[in-house]
């Protein structure tokens, strides 16, 4: 069973979000649970720096051997940074989902109330497996 760090927030679309507690710039990635379900990730498309996104917007995609999934903006705001390393080496999503495999950073505009806690996300994923 893959790990679900306590100090992150999550979405139903299997993304993790860090930085909620300490500022306006949030880092977004996909969870180890999702990476495991996808299999080997072979392609990652990230949003453009400077783009303004609304919660739920499809902002990129992650593609594995067998499937392709959209990446959704978990919150609204401006994309301020993207992870070029994961674009160059998509396997980072599998090998270090919560670290080197991060996807993009967004400067939060509005609130981030709809995110799940680690406990809620654990309940969600144990219900699916």
């Amino acid at each position, binding site marked *: 069973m893959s790990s679900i760090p306590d100090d992150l927030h999550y979405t139903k679309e299997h993304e993790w979000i860090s930085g909620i507690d300490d500022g306006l710039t949030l880092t977004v990635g996909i969870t180890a649970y999702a990476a495991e*379900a996808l299999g080997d990730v072979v*392609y990652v498309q990230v949003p453009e720096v400077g783009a303004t996104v609304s919660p739920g917007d499809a902002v990129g995609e992650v593609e594995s051997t*067998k499937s392709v999934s959209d990446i959704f903006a978990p919150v609204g705001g401006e994309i301020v940074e993207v992870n070029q390393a994961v674009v160059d080496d998509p396997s980072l999503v599998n090998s270090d989902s919560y670290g080197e495999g991060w996807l993009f950073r967004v400067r939060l505009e509005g609130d981030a109330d709809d995110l799940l806690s680690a406990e809620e996300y654990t309940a969600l994923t144990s219900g699916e497996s």
Partner: protein
Amino acid sequence: MSRPTPLRGVHETLGATLTDFAGWLMPLRYGSESTEHNAVRQAAGLFDLSHMGEIFVTGPQAGEALDYALVGHLSVLEPGRARYTMIVDPSGGVLDDLIVYRLADEEFMVVANASNYPRVAAELTERAKAFDAAVEDRSEQYALVAVQGPHSRAILGELTDADLDGLKYYAGLPATVAGREALLARTGYTGEDGFELFVAAGDAEPLWAALTEAGEPYGLRPAGLSARDTLRLEAGMPLYGNELSADLTPFDAGLGRVVRFDKPGDFVGRAALEPLKDVPPSRRLVGLVATGRRVPRHGYPVVSADGAVVGEVTSGAPSQSLGRPIAMAYVDEGPSTGLAVDIRGSREPVDVVELPFYRRKK
């Protein structure tokens, strides 16, 4: 509820990701599917293929019955040899692609795809009625385990006294492997040298364990359906439901060579197929190699330089051997340059190549 194979417990112990495939609960992968794919290309892989169907046709006219029921000429097959063939409906549409083994003068085994074998067994039963031959679906009684890859010969050699060097590609013989009776065949669906072992369902677990142990020094890894699909795609081998369907004839799929009009007598589909044999099909099955990194997948449109839809992708995946995404597609006759695949709304350029994408070094 998906049906488990006799090896379900083994897959669970190995931590496999299980998936429903044609009504069967099958291992999709055990860890990284890329690692499994590469193991088969460079060392060896171990597959559970127990979802395949085994249909036996026996009796004095078993060969003649198959000549009538299938597009191939099976009555001339030597005992111990196998042939790739197809079963079509009266209008020539492909109902399944098959491997037929002649086990003895009056005994054939027809291996059919998991999704199709109940239909194939029913059709064979119906079509064999006028012949002195019996059709029996023994799929439930058999497990099928495959060892594929350049080291498969050496691994099998540890477990059997059978004459493996005398066993040619597309041949099969009864053998004792790890103390179990098996039909040992040199066949596969990966583009590598390899073997398929048909054994009693109850022998599957001990055979798997023996192969795992014997294969360990050779780098043998269990490999799931995900690797099997990328391996067969690189080898340019068709998959029923993707490249083959009842809407297509063997000629449409570029496999007209399996239709043997030179055999004596009628066969189901002859009248429909005969007029097609010299007619070039309007669409052709081709290989595509993407220049970018996004993967063309089943059902995506192939578009020409001017944006017209000129074909459709049947299978696609990232290719370990080429380092780029590959696909098979049916494409209209016409210029093969400037083509692209419409990947969820954006045009991704592709090069058209001859199949297969990958050919092993002999």
